[in-house]
């Protein structure tokens, strides 16, 4: 039951991962990862498939098309697996179509010869042409335009929903971080980028923004509460939010990644490189990076961005005051009858000061066991104030 204990401790703040206080470390980690990814893109250009750049196409006509035409054609081209960007398909009943990346005239002639030999047809029956890209510039342009418009809209929606544009900015930075790293790792693996891969990138994008929004919603809740009662600094409230959603993040990532992992393992063991494996890889990395950024990057970024905001600075001051007051009270509070530090049995010395404090620091009734002199269980509110009545703070002290 360690995991659930962890969840409980994270929730109450008893145990806490210093995500926000240690944010510089995470920034550095992210920056290094991104630098590596960008460098990877520079050194190792993305291996774009023939859907993007066009290629050469060969048609073998007049063959009886044996059942294993696909592997035959691949062998003829010396491309054993799918990652080299060779597409083989059957047209009608008597034609095999082979598409490769763009070849020059000499290579073309060579491939023509090999294909003719493999399928035992005269060379004249193997035609060669160039094909244009099916995912051409116009598709890319449209997709990019759509993406930019989407990001602007998302920024607007998030800014309105969270009533703060910095949250939207932090979410978008985290998103860019995820995409850069995913694409970078793709360039390192040197897998061919096909339209399916592009779809994979888009899926990662959707997942990343989803994950960040879920965490931010908790941050919003906690910080709003902090702004209302002034008991916690902005950074602390945000850190608590991250910790409180940590169990959710872990569970979600696990459940999201398990099916992908299955696809990845099955793909690697039984299929070898191919669309399925490519997609699984890009999603696997993307979801992991997305989970990382939503926990360790987005919220710290938000805190950094808002550090200088007037409201946040003011809140931090209030929180510091409140903290100091509580510390003072803790020191002043006598060790009551079986009482834990929180509520303190202030019955005996119900002087105004202590009583105010205990109302202010609305005690989590961790001390339900505490009893009065009569031995009867009494509600914590009834333990403070004269005649065991709840007491309100004087008007000047109220918020």
């Amino acid at each position, binding site marked *: 039951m360690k995991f*659930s204990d962890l*969840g*409980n401790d994270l929730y*109450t703040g008893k145990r806490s991962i210093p995500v926000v206080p240690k944010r510089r470390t995470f920034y550095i980690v992210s920056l290094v990862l991104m630098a590596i990814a960008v460098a990877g893109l520079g050194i190792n250009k993305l291996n774009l498939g023939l859907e993007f750049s*066009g290629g050469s196409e060969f048609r073998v006509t007049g063959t009886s098309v044996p059942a294993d035409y*696909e592997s035959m054609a691949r062998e003829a081209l010396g491309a054993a697996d799918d990652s080299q960007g060779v*597409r*083989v*398909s*059957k*047209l*009608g009943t008597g*034609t095999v179509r082979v598409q490769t990346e763009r070849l020059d005239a000499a290579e073309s002639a060579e491939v023509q010869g090999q294909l003719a030999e493999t399928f035992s047809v005269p060379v004249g029956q193997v035609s060669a*042409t*160039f094909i*244009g890209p099916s*995912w051409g510039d*116009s*598709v890319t342009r*449209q*997709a990019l335009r*759509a*993406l930019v*418009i*989407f990001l602007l809209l998302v920024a607007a*929606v998030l800014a309105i*929903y969270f009533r703060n544009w910095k949250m939207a900015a932090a979410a978008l930075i985290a998103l860019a971080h995820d995409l850069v790293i995913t694409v970078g790792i793709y360039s390192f693996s040197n897998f061919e980028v096909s339209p*399916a891969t*592009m*779809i994979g990138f*888009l*899926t990662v*994008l959707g*997942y990343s*923004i*989803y994950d960040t*929004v*879920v965490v931010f*919603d908790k941050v919003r809740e906690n910080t709003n509460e902090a702004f209302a009662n002034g008991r916690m600094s902005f950074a602390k409230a945000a850190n608590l939010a991250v910790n409180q959603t940590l*169990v*959710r993040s872990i*569970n*979600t990532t*696990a459940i*999201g990644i*398990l*099916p992908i*992992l*299955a*696809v990845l*393992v*099955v793909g690697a063991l039984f299929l070898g490189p*191919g*669309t*399925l494996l490519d*997609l699984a890889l890009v999603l696997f990395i993307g979801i992991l990076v997305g989970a990382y950024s939503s926990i360790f990057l987005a919220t710290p970024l938000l805190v950094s961005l808002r550090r200088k905001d007037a409201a946040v600075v003011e809140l931090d001051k209030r929180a510091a005051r409140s903290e100091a007051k509580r510390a003072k009270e803790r020191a002043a509070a006598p060790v009551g009858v079986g009482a834990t530090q929180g509520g303190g049995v202030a019955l005996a010395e119900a002087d105004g000061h202590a009583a105010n404090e205990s109302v202010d620091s609305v005690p989590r*009734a961790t001390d*339900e066991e505490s009893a009065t002199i009569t031995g009867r*269980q009494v*509600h914590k509110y009834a333990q403070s104030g004269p005649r065991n009545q709840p007491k309100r703070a004087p008007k000047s002290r109220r918020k």
Partner: protein
Amino acid sequence: MAQMSHATFARRALAGMAVLTIALMGLLFGANQFSNGSYAPKLGLDLEGGTQIILQPRLTGDKTVSPEQISQARDIIVQRVDAGGVAGAEVTTQGGRNIVVSMPGTPDKSTEDAIQRSSQLQFRPVLAIAAGSPQPEPSASPSSSASPSPSGSAVPAPSASPSASAPVASPAPSSSTNNSAVPGAFAAEPSPSASPSAPASPAASPSASPSPSASGGATGAKDPLSLDQITPELTAAFTALDCSKEGALEDLVDDDTKPLVTCDADGAAKYILGPVVVSGDKISDASAGYQVGQNGQQTSTVEIQLNLNGEGAKQYADISRKMVPLQQPQNQLAATLDSRVIVAPTFNEAIPNGKASITGGFGIEEARDLAQQLKFGALPISFDLQTRDQISPTLGSEQLRYGLWAGLVGLLLVTIYSLLQYRVLGFVTIASILAAGVLTYLAITILGWSHNYRLDMAGVTGLIVAIGFTADSFIVYFERIRDELREGRSLESAVATGWDRAKRTILIADGVNFLAAIVLYVLASSSVRGFAFTLGLTTLLDILIVFLFTHPLVTLLARRKFFRGGHPMSGLDPDKLGAVKKTSYAGRGRFTTNPPRVAGGEGSAS
């Protein structure tokens, strides 16, 4: 009482869910029984293969195609293919001149036509009309039109008005005349238009033309309305043209700036048309629908409404203003599609706002196709079908099989994980994922039937990832409930408050995804569009499942003793969750702690 209504609400929601599922099943069953639906989802090009069509540009004479024309044509064809549903077709160029369209399944004739057709819409003024095929009557009449006869014998207008109440088809008595072939009107209003003249009238009408056309301000030589353009060669061609013959227009050369001799769509009339006054690329939008009559009711006349852009609207306004005072048939403006006249109505008034409407002899389906094509623009060149082949899947069948196996294994892992994490509550997760799976299956199968939605490999992986999205909504929800339990609430109230908070999170997170889906679907093309569709669908289903299935189920379960009592296996045990023990007043001077392990009384007893 409030809890009672919660439960009632939950039961209703579950019932609604059941009704929805059954309705979808019924729809699927109906689609299979009475239409061409299938019980399995349709698969995409990479998984199932399909048909490959190679289009070759039709080049007359020594014309050549430029790469720009080909890529422009490719873009337009992509749009047209996309308009036919979410099929995930692939459009490429080949050898720098052919266009290769690969689409899953077997496209029917109309789909093929819609892709191939150049859809060049033009507006040209009518100079002369005659019956489509030679008739015993003096069909040479247009020849006389060149010679301006002095008299103002433009009688046709009065003779037309009494008989011409129906805009759709012209009066029966004149069936042998050419005008019966002109079926529609520019419908600013259902005008008493196109049935006016006797066969001889075209000859008479030109007489009035010189004066009004001069008033248009255009120079005489360039005026598209001028009858001076009818040269003897044109007349000869016009006389010789027999629209009833197959291939009468085969060697038609369509030049925008010159008059054109052509037939109408069904070959019943032939025309001499002036140069293009408004070309099809000025159309900014086109839609098809039933015409709305004067009293606001829909009539059975199908019309295509065109919105022209600024320049087009101006040209259209100019030409309509000029034409109104003209005589028959010169006040007719012909709309030609691929050089054939589809409709040549008369103007009753000038139309300044650039909204044209074409009514004609087409059915609603045809009109919709046409409107789509007009909207995306005309192909810069005409294409002929070169070859048409079956094409095998580019991905081996084992990719899909292993993909599905992997998905199942993944689902199993998810099951184990959620049972470990959430104990019995994990079954709710699994039931929800299964419900989502059933709904997704139904939805994609039905969409395959209605919108030609096809699953390709990326789509399959997308659905596998969607398991994660869907599960996350439950996790957010369950974690919220646990948080509320930790705060010391009773289970039922924890479910209610937890739901209120989780609802917001789920809605905004899913809302962002749905926004992505809509933007990408509307603005992107090809496979990105397919992705957007899948994303939108799964997001919508996710919301549906959480609201109508998971939450009601949890609400009902929370009333069971097993969960309410915080059984250690329920996954909602307050002790295990380290719940804050809260004391509340239980009446009669007693307090209870929460959870009520020893109900009441404990305080006063000690």
